[in-house]
């Protein structure tokens, strides 16, 4: 008997139980969760100092744009800590703004694909990423996350897809193919933007040769913040689009 068969029985089922059970702390580690400003600190002063330090402009003098954060952890020197509530997504970039730097309010994105039942096909377009987001998205196909158990699969042509998943900051040459891909998707369809780059450009915002933000090119339905977001964040985003997330099972802060 090949050793892997015995191994499979010894180890049992390892596949994540999300979304039937909440995501565990290991599945969404501290470092992939948003920074928060713990209560009890001198907010104005901390925000001011952190704003100077933050490379992406996620921190401003009066709040935190979660969509821009790249989890670089520089702000921790000023008193921010990681480990905010994970698994947040939003349909508008403004919804990812938290005044005062506190945790994001619990809010569920729209569900434009709620009529599609249990089958959802994803077409992934890399608009100009560092490949980290790609890896996290494609991790959904591995045996641990196993999105296929939820009827979610990746397809090779937009003609067969329901969701256009975009990662990375749009570079100029990809804009036209992106539009073509969106055009080629049969309706009902949705666009899911993954990671800081696809939200507002992340670290590369304003780079010549790129054209952020993505939502000016395509009608983005849902943003999943992070740099990169964890696979479960992405899965939650896909399930939200399909109306299959009843509430955000965020990891407790």
């Amino acid at each position: 008997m090949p050793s892997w068969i015995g191994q499979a029985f010894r180890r049992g089922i390892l596949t994540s139980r999300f979304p039937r059970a909440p995501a565990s702390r290991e599945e969404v580690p501290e470092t992939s969760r948003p920074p928060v400003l713990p209560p009890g600190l001198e907010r104005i002063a901390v925000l001011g100092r952190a704003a100077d330090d933050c490379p992406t402009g996620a921190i401003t003098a009066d709040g935190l744009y979660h969509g821009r954060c790249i989890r670089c952890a520089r702000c921790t020197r000023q008193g921010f800590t990681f480990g905010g509530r994970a698994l947040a997504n939003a349909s508008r970039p403004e919804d990812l703004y938290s005044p005062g730097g506190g945790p994001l309010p619990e809010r569920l994105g729209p569900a434009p694909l709620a009529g599609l039942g249990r089958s959802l096909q994803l077409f992934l377009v890399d608009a100009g990423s560092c490949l980290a987001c790609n890896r996290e998205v494609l991790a959904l196909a591995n045996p641990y996350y196993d999105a296929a158990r939820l009827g979610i699969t990746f397809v090779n042509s937009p003609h067969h897809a329901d969701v256009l998943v975009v990662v990375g900051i749009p570079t100029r040459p990809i804009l036209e193919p992106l539009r073509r891909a969106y055009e080629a998707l049969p309706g009902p369809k949705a666009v899911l933007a993954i990671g800081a780059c696809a939200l507002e450009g992340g670290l590369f915002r304003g780079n010549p040769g790129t054209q952020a933000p993505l939502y000016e090119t395509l009608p983005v339905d849902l943003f999943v913040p992070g740099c990169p977001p964890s696979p479960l964040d992405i899965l939650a985003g896909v399930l939200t689009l399909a109306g299959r997330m009843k509430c955000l099972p965020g990891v407790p802060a």
Partner: protein
Amino acid sequence: MIDPSALLLDASLATLFAAVPASWGGRRLAYAFSFAGSALLFAAATAALVLGPFTALSYGGPFGETETLGLDALSAFFALSASVVWIGASAFSLSYDERPGPGLAQAFALTLGSIAVLFAAGNFLLFLAAWEGMTLASFWMILEATGRRGPVLSAGLVFLAFGEGSTLLVALAVAGFHAATGTFAMVSVLAVPVSTGIFLCALVGFGLKMGVAPFHMSEWLPIAHSSAPSNASAVLSATLTLAGVYGLFRVISLLPAGPDWWGGVVLAIGAISALLGALFASVSEHVKGLPAYSTIENNGLILVAVGVALVARSQGLGTLYAFALFAAFFQALAHAVAKGTLFLFTGYVERATGTFDLNEVRGRARGRSPGAALGGIVSGLSFAAAAPLAGFVGEWMILEALFQSYRFEGPAFEFLGLLAGAAVALSLGLALVAMVKLVGFSLLWNPQDSPAGRRQSGPGPPLAALSGAILALGVGAPWVLTFIAPAIRGLSHQALSAPVGQLLDMPARWSILSGSPFGILSPPAVPIGIALGSLVALGYFFLGGRTASRRVPIWVSGRAPSPVGETYTSFGFSTGIRIMLGSLLGTRELRRRSGGITAVAIEGPEVYNVELEVLDAFKVLYDDLVRGGLALSAALKRFLMPGRPGRYLAYVLITVLAVLIYLTAAG
């Protein structure tokens, strides 16, 4: 009093052969004779099935044997199947054959005549003579392709080599019969050891003509490589292989129930052929090569049914034996008619577009002749096993027979049945791909830039009539089975009735039963169901049902569609199979700047065309064998015939000595 059925058969044979001299009065006259002869054969065969067997002619032949010409139920069934194809092919040839000389018409007539004699022969000597005549006549027909040199000649020679090999083995089988029975008359052999030898010789000999693996080169090579004329291809692929099936059944009908491994061998060969044929059909880009491969597949399916029948016979499973025989016969009939139609359709495509490359056809055969298009679509659908056409019923029956292979005794046979079932199911799926490709790329898909083909009116009526036949065979399958039951009764040596019966409240004969407790199919109910379903859909549509459609440009990896128009090639259509089943197909990637089939253009620093070449492992094997054989004979020649007179004198001396020694020893 003269038997009217006998008169019909005599008239038919005379007319079929009279077409040869008639060809000097014009090709069309010759084809008209062939048409009339085929129609008479149809009538004679029908008479034999309805009124019972008859002998039309008997005369004293060589070796003091009585030679007879006549039809019994078994040969009548095959004559009937072939005559349907011939009627269509002759009618089609009237407008198709535009060659300067009468050669093709003569070869065509001779082939038809010798196959008819083969069916009618009541004696193995005449059978052998007709078998050889059929091989030679069809060899001539292949040579009638454009020019007799180069690839045409070599393809023809391959056909001849396989054909003569087949004659040799069939002759061996006949010799076995003679040794066992002391006569060339078709009488049963009872001893098992000699019948095993006869069976194996017959299996290989007739298998060679059926083009089953590993002899499938004999099927596709002459047709595809020489691009043999289409009416010739129809006769070759539909009825020459049918002659092989007939021969196999004739021999089986005369042999005792052998050991069960006979059936196992047949089953394995059939399953492999079916899979190989379908696989290569699905990746073939040749308008004629594709149906030729499909013939390999279908003959494989027939062999699968024969294999199930033989195992069932050896193991005493009466019902399954009868059902599998019915399946084999029905599939043989369905294949002959549909394949004849499909080849005639390829003739129409060839005339309309002037090419054999599916990538070049590009839908140009569309709208040139509605009747011919109908023929292509219906026969293609039949091979794709679409209900309610003939192919669907035949393939359903074969699968049903395989489902019952669990009744076999012994795990080896059960397992074999299981594997064969999987192979058959896979080959059916691949056949669907192949047929969609052939019919789709010649008729249904029309890019804007492809020029119009040539308008034709000739091929329409025969093809439309044949497609009607395919539909009728499918819908009327229970009646057809009842009609051909006498042919199967002859094989089972016992009374049996067609596997048709009553289902729920439907009238008797509306359904085919595969044996209790098993599958039921009601072919006449299928079109009714389809019609009702269509009515519902149409009703929904007319009562204001919503339909939404949106046209988007073709998706070419996000690139802008090329200004000259992106085309979906037939090559691209099956490239998935080329890649996925690369290990079976021996797919190799060739990079070319130009030439070959432009398959995939990959943009990068350089633009080049990728051609995926598939390889028939058996062809490689034969090529190696040929090369080895040639090398061996060259070496022998150098050794035995070095050109020294002394050596030759020594040979003469040795021979004389050997004869002397033999004579003294014998004396």
